[in-house]
């Protein structure tokens, strides 16, 4: 949607919901208080002027100091859009109200963002990891995520494998011991530069 149209959306929102704080970021609307998100979405969905009845994409992003959740809304009835909504939360307390009660298409997409960024969508009917298994630790799309080295075994892994009768070569055991003595985990080193 053009910058002019997004300003009209903002004007209408401010007239109807005066206590919601909004800020224009580029061509998108930043909702300052995450709690207001469902109200704003419901207004955009049901106002006959906009009828943004289709949530195309809902995803997260990590900007080091904060996490962001981005929503792209379109209107199937009026054939217009997109309106981009943003919500920002701190990394310590990443709680955002879920849009799943308003748009069902958020169900799987919010589960994905929870899985990969660890954003907790409150009020989601079934907030579980989508792609990773339940015991998985960490959120892989966060910029500070450290990936385990699949080829180096840790002491806990060796204990688990040996308890099941699997023989481990001695050099692997020694490596695990030195790692444990140093108090380190087996982490893959990130490349300084990406591959060409």
């Amino acid at each position, binding site marked *: 949607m053009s910058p002019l149209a997004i300003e009209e959306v903002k004007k209408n929102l401010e007239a109807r919901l005066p206590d919601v704080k909004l800020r224009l970021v580029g061509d998108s609307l930043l909702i300052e208080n995450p709690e207001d998100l469902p109200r704003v979405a419901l207004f955009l969905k049901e106002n006959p002027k906009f009828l943004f009845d289709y*949530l*195309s994409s809902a*995803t997260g992003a990590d900007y080091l100091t904060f996490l962001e959740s*981005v929503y792209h809304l379109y209107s199937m009835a009026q054939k217009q859009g997109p309106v981009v909504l943003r919500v920002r939360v701190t990394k310590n307390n990443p709680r955002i109200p879920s849009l799943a009660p308003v748009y069902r298409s958020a169900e799987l997409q919010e589960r994905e963002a929870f899985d990969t960024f660890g954003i907790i969508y409150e009020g989601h009917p079934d907030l579980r990891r989508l*792609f990773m298994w339940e015991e998985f630790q960490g959120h892989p*799309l966060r910029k500070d995520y450290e990936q385990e080295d699949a080829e180096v075994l840790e002491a806990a892994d060796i204990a688990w494998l040996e308890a099941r009768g699997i023989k481990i070569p001695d050099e692997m055991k020694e490596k695990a011991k030195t790692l444990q003595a140093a108090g380190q985990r087996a982490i893959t080193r990130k490349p300084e530069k990406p591959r*060409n």
Partner: protein
Amino acid sequence: MEIINALKNTDETQILEINFGPQHPSTHGVFRMTIQLEGEKICGLKPVFGYLHRNHEQIAENLPYAAIMPYTDRLDYVNALANNFGYALTIEKLAGLEVPERAEYIRVIMAELARVVNHITVIGFMLNDLGAFFTPLLYAFRERERILDLFEEITGSRLMNNFFRFGGVKRDLTNANLAAIQKIVSKFPAFLKEFEALLTKNEILCMRCQNIGVLSGDTATNAGITGPVLRASGVNYDIRKVDHYSIYDRFDFKIPLGEKGDVYDRFYVRVLEIRESLKILEQALAKIPAGEIINKKSLPLLKMPRNFKPPVGEAYGRVESPKGELGFYVVSDGTPQPWRYHVRAPSLINLTVLEEMCLGQKIADAIIILGSIDIVLGETDR
């Protein structure tokens, strides 16, 4: 004896929970559903994802922009060209690159051929799921193979095409290629007629497909269902018509719509969409102009992909892929790799209402409902 008598006097049956997949041929890959059954009726269904997860998004965030293009082939590997299209469109939006006229035509021709390939494959596999064991599928594959041979000649690969570049395409279509496409396009309606004579009014097909897995238009809109599944429910929404991306506003084609939103409508909407795609192909082949196939500004980029740094900002580009709306959300921080790269996968989001469509149906119907949604696990799990 007492136990049998006790059971006779009650209607209650035991609820049986079964794991359907991930290693099951009719889940079209490694997709798993946990199904609760009451007799043969489904009373609960939970899809389980992630068996083909490779964190496509993180891989892409560590690569230069141009190097992501071949990875997008692996999303929906049945029609790689549509994925290329979506990604190229997004980056062009981000970097403000123009595409020359001839390249636009080549893009549309290739994308529509990919749509034909996808739809014919889906119909074939859906009939396979119905129990029409491999005969219709092989009829479909015979035609598909002709188009794939053409893809091999033009792009160098049958499935992993990697054909689009930012600001154009990799290779020009020669006159011989255009003639070959024309030949396929003019022969295709005869095949469709034969295919339809065998299937469309077939009594078994109608009985198995009609009134199965009904999805209402309102639910579909709210759940973000897109593509043929949405249009079979009677919602007129095609991104080619709405966004007019590339040069789709220059072609005359219709949007086929279903009435009920059952499996049969989804099957038939796809047949009709192939016809519309052929119409677009005819027009594009007649009108294709001579000229450049890639923007001059992006030529150095082909040689040195790491020098390509789009300005700081973000873009959301979407195309009507054969499966639905394929969206790419890319955030650039001015470095050679994207800061954030997200794929809005239609195969994943179209599964939101799978449970609702299957409830109360027989277990054999769940298979064709899944087949009619048309998922590719490379895209669902990413």
